[in-house]
């Protein structure tokens, strides 16, 4: 059964090639949309059957399915082969499942677009690449997917290449696409070098072989410079793809792409590739405590800083983008403290609720003539009830309201960061959670509640078509109940010793890493866990209450305005995203380009090298010009030369003997 895993990836590939080549001849949106969605839907069904199979016959070791040799020279040989195990199947389910829903949604959202077939072709390409990323059995195949999703992200961000988009030194969507690709490439550099180091030290690029080598005698490798170096470089790659500090700057600009793209690539799936890479190599990372600390710190800081930015932004997608960066920070914080399952769990629930939020935002923009500014919306709930309800569910989920999915996953991260990490990490994460609930409810209140602040003459809000609301509803159900896949022991102990399904399911993947970290896997009840849980629920409720007071009850927004005015400089810094883009431009990019232009090109190439060569030519010419003058044409002169020559020769002959 597992031997046919390549079908999962093959179907979207067929979709990509077929739509790319013949899509523009089909001329029928329904047909194109159906083909594009069906390939992903079938992939999902197939992944799901594998998943069911895995439930019945749990795998102790991953199944490796070899297809063919990719790169070979000397002893170096890298196959195209897939690794089927609990981690890759969970990821595949999320990718194809959420991916399928977003494909359906896009049929409605992209209706009438001249690049309709191109859009579906690219989306299929993305799914194909993302599946290779998670299913690949070696670093190089993952890298193929890694770069491939970067390519599709590039193509899709710049999909409307002739539309304006505002950002730091960005006026067109195409520039945002470039930025995403190039910033990601910086991370990819880390990935490349990490692969070289792994190959040199372990003579393999296969995940399984590396894992087995390490597992034989893990403590021999613990904290060695090689392991720390490799893990730091891999983490560097992850900061690129998953938009963590200091490479987080590309994700907000990636919002230039159509909204389904933001939902699928820049919220639900691609940006969690970094978490996947770390989870896939959990044992490796567990052996590098230094790296783990770095990861936890970066994750926590990213969660905090982007949450602060999120509180002041006015673009509906911008807020969600910063929220995504912040939530990814939570996941990295979890990885950093060794809570691998919690991170993967949050990847999953986040895919549900953040995908839903973006699709909801898309639905709002669809009904509002592409208006993005939340200050120009308001009172939309009566125009778009389905969007409103589903959006609300997702907001409750991300805010961590009990029983909604986000509550379970976020709380597990919070608890683990406290229990395995330290109070400081927990405190910063709690503050970020506080801001999360605040900016999300600020968004809901500004968009759906209160006065209608848009121009009624030009904008006639309306609910989106069924192809768009159907995915919203499915995702809302998942956002609401998805959390029950990971019930914490503290809440579920009365019906089972291992109530956390996901924890059990992923146990074979993380057991060695947990062993190294000294996690027994046995749970015991701690009063602290209940207290923390109560605190975080309290925080969320408090934020919701504040947002309600500030933005719904008081339609003049007096309190936020007052606060903004009193902390104007801080507000400006937040509004300008801590000037990170500007700093990069003035410290790195501009000096580099200036050097290239005015030193390397104009001086080294033109003046020095060419100057040298042209100089030599000039000397030759000058020399010739001088010598030429000897040829006077007068016989007398030549006779003098001859005489002089004869004298010299004779003298030399006489004196030399």
């Amino acid at each position, binding site marked *: 059964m597992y031997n046919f895993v390549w079908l999962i990836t093959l179907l979207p590939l067929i979709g990509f090639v077929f739509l790319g080549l013949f899509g523009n001849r089909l001329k029928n949106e329904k047909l194109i949309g159906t083909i594009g969605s069906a390939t992903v839907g079938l992939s999902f069904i197939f992944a799901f059957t594998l998943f069911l199979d895995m439930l019945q016959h749990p795998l102790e070791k991953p199944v490796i399915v070899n297809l*063919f*040799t*990719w*790169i*070979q*020279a*000397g002893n*170096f040989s890298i196959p195209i082969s897939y690794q089927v195990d609990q981690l890759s199947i969970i990821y595949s389910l999320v990718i194809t499942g959420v991916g399928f829903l977003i494909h359906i949604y896009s049929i409605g959202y992209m209706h009438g677009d001249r690049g309709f077939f191109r859009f579906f072709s690219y989306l299929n390409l993305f799914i194909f690449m993302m599946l290779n990323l998670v299913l690949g059995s070696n670093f*190089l195949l993952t*890298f*193929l997917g*890694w*770069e*491939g999703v970067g*390519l599709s992200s*590039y193509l899709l961000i*710049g999909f409307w*290449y*002739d539309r304006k988009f505002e950002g730091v030194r960005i006026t*067109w*969507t*195409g*520039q945002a*696409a*470039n930025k995403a*690709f*190039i910033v990601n*490439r*910086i991370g*990819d*550099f880390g990935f*490349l*070098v990490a692969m*070289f180091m792994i*190959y*040199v030290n372990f003579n393999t690029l296969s995940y399984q072989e590396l894992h087995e080598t390490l597992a034989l005698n893990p403590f021999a490798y613990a904290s060695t410079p090689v392991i720390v170096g490799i893990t730091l470089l891999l983490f560097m790659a992850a900061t690129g793809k998953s938009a963590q500090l200091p490479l987080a700057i590309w994700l907000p600009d990636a919002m230039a792409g159509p909204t389904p793209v933001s939902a699928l690539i820049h919220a639900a799936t691609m940006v969690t590739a970094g978490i996947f890479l770390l989870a896939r190599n959990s044992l490796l990372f567990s052996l590098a405590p230094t790296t783990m600390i770095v990861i936890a710190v970066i994750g926590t800081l990213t969660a905090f800083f982007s949450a602060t930015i999120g509180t002041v932004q006015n673009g509906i997608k911008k807020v969600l983008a910063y929220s995504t960066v912040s939530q990814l920070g939570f996941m990295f914080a979890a990885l950093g403290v060794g809570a691998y399952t919690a991170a993967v769990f949050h990847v999953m629930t986040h895919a549900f609720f953040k995908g839903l939020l973006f699709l909801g935002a898309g639905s709002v923009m669809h009904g509002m003539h592409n208006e993005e500014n939340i200050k120009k919306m308001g009172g939309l709930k009566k125009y778009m009830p389905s969007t409103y309800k589903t959006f609300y569910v997702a907001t409750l989920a991300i805010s961590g309201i009990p029983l909604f999915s986000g509550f379970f996953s976020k709380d597990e991260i919070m608890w683990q960061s406290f229990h395995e990490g330290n109070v400081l990490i927990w405190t910063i994460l709690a503050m970020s959670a506080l801001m999360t609930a605040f900016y999300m409810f600020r968004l809901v209140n500004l968009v759906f509640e209160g006065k209608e602040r848009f121009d009624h003459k030009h904008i006639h809000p309306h609910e989106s078509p069924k192809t768009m609301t159907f995915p919203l509803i499915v995702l809302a159900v998942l956002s609401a109940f998805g959390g029950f896949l990971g019930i914490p022991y503290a809440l579920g102990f009365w019906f089972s010793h291992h109530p956390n399904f996901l924890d059990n399911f992923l146990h074979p993947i993380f057991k060695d890493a947990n062993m190294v970290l000294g996690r027994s896997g046995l749970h015991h009840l701690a009063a602290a866990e209940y207290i923390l849980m109560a605190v975080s629920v309290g925080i969320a409720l408090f934020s919701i209450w504040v947002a309600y007071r500030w933005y719904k009850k008081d339609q003049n927004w007096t309190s936020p305005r007052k606060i903004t005015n009193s902390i104007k400089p801080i507000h400006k810094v937040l509004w300008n995203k801590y000037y990170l883009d500007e700093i990069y431009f003035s410290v790195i990019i501009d000096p*580099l*380009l200036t*050097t*290239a*232009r005015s030193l*390397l*090109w104009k001086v*080294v*190439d*033109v003046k020095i*090298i*060419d100057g040298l*060569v042209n100089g030599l*030519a000039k000397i030759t010419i000058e020399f010739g010009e001088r010598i030429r003058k000897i040829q006077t044409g007068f016989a007398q002169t030549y006779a003098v030369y001859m005489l002089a020559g004869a004298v010299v020769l004779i003298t030399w002959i006489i004196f030399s003997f």
Partner: protein
Amino acid sequence: MTALLLTLFLPLIGALLVLFVDKTLEKFIRYFTLGTSILTFLVSLALLFAFDPNNPNIQFYINQIWISSLDTGFRIGMDGMSLLIVMLTTFLSPIAILASFDSIHHRQKEYYFMILILQFAMTGVFIAMDTFLFYIFWELILIPMYFIIGIWGGKNKIYATVKFFIFTIVGSLFMLLGIIWLSQYVGNHILTTGFTTDYLLIKDAAPSIPLNYQAWLFWAFAVSFFIKVPLFPFHTWLPDAHTEAPTPGSVILAGVLLKMGTYGLIRFNLEFFPQASMEFSSIISWLAVVGIIYGALVAAIQTDIKRLVAYSSVSHLGFVVLGIFSMTAIGLQGAIIQMVNHGLSTGMLFLLVGMIYERRHTRDIAEYGGIARIMPVYATFFAIAMFSSVGLPGLNGFVGEYMTLIGAFTSPILNNWAYTIVAATGVIFAAVYLLWMFQRVFFGTNDNPANHTLKDLTKREWTILIPIVIFIVWIGIYPSTFTNISENSTRKLVNKIEQVKFNRTPYPELDKYIDNLKTDKSVQNKQNNNGK
């Protein structure tokens, strides 16, 4: 063997026949030339099938004495590396000729004569198994190329072509000195059978040359090849020559001519002077690494698309040189496949630049913007070539870059990770300069009125590009088809280098070999004397 002779001589025959055609029959000349080069390509396919990849030695060997007093002969043959590059040549030539249909409008007879002579000489370079013959083909290339740039080139063509000529000929002179000295030294001091230019003999004997002589000889050859590659800091002829050459000229120049340098480095420097190569590998690798970064940075700030692509060659060829001087199997294999890749992707970029130039007669990036809307097919092809050049996994560029980098990283000779780490930043810069250019040309709105009426690709242009795209994807996904061809000859070379490295007595079987040779020669001499 017949196939090899045909591959070499068909273009020459074609060129001579073109001379006899009335120059007003331009259309006939065009199709005749195209037909000749396609026929050559088909013949070279026979080579591909007849070639035995398991045999690491020179195959299809032909040995015909030419100047017996110098032991110089018409000696040709090929190993895996030759075969790949020859295939690249026979593959790119018809494409370049087809592209000439659109870009060459005057003095067509002379042009097509030149381009066939060029193909003849290029093929000769890659199959010559005699140093003297190699030198002749090497120099022969200068003549048609000089005229192609000088007559059919752009505004600054005379400066460019003279610069190209002088740079290359200065290098060649060093090589000529090297060839003479080498033949003399090997013939009289090592083999003691007299002056010889037989590649196969020199290849086995030359490694025993003492290092102090090897060093001189090494540089005599190397400088000539470095200029051709071009390796930083010998690269400044290239942007001018590339920019001023007509489109097909640039395609051939980038696609094949530059490979003569890297080919020569493997064929002569590594084969003849493994010890000196090791000795100097670090300095050369540093130059290669500097070239990677330097070329990329300077490419980033160019305003002329063609010049940008030209500078990108400096960057890409840096990877090839780095792979060569890693002197590992994977590094060399990567270098060879990267030579092919660069020929395909940069060749394709030049073709694409030429296509837009034919329409608008400008290559200034600022003149464009928003082209994607009216030329979507063109934009798609451009994107494929660009991502191939950027080294996106799944396309050909990645395979070569990755193999050369891992070769340099694992190389016991370079024995330093810094080369690879610095070189790998090239992957970032490649994305910077190419994507930035792409965005300025294709994205945004089409504001320039001169661009409003641009037409998308014609059928002929499709025909030109499709074959390249097929290979770009093929090599990206299943490079084994190509790497297998050169695998064994590369491995043989690496074994030789390793022997030198570990034994310091370069060629253990040499003595036996020389003895055999002496008896052979003395038998021959006796027979000759008897004959007299």
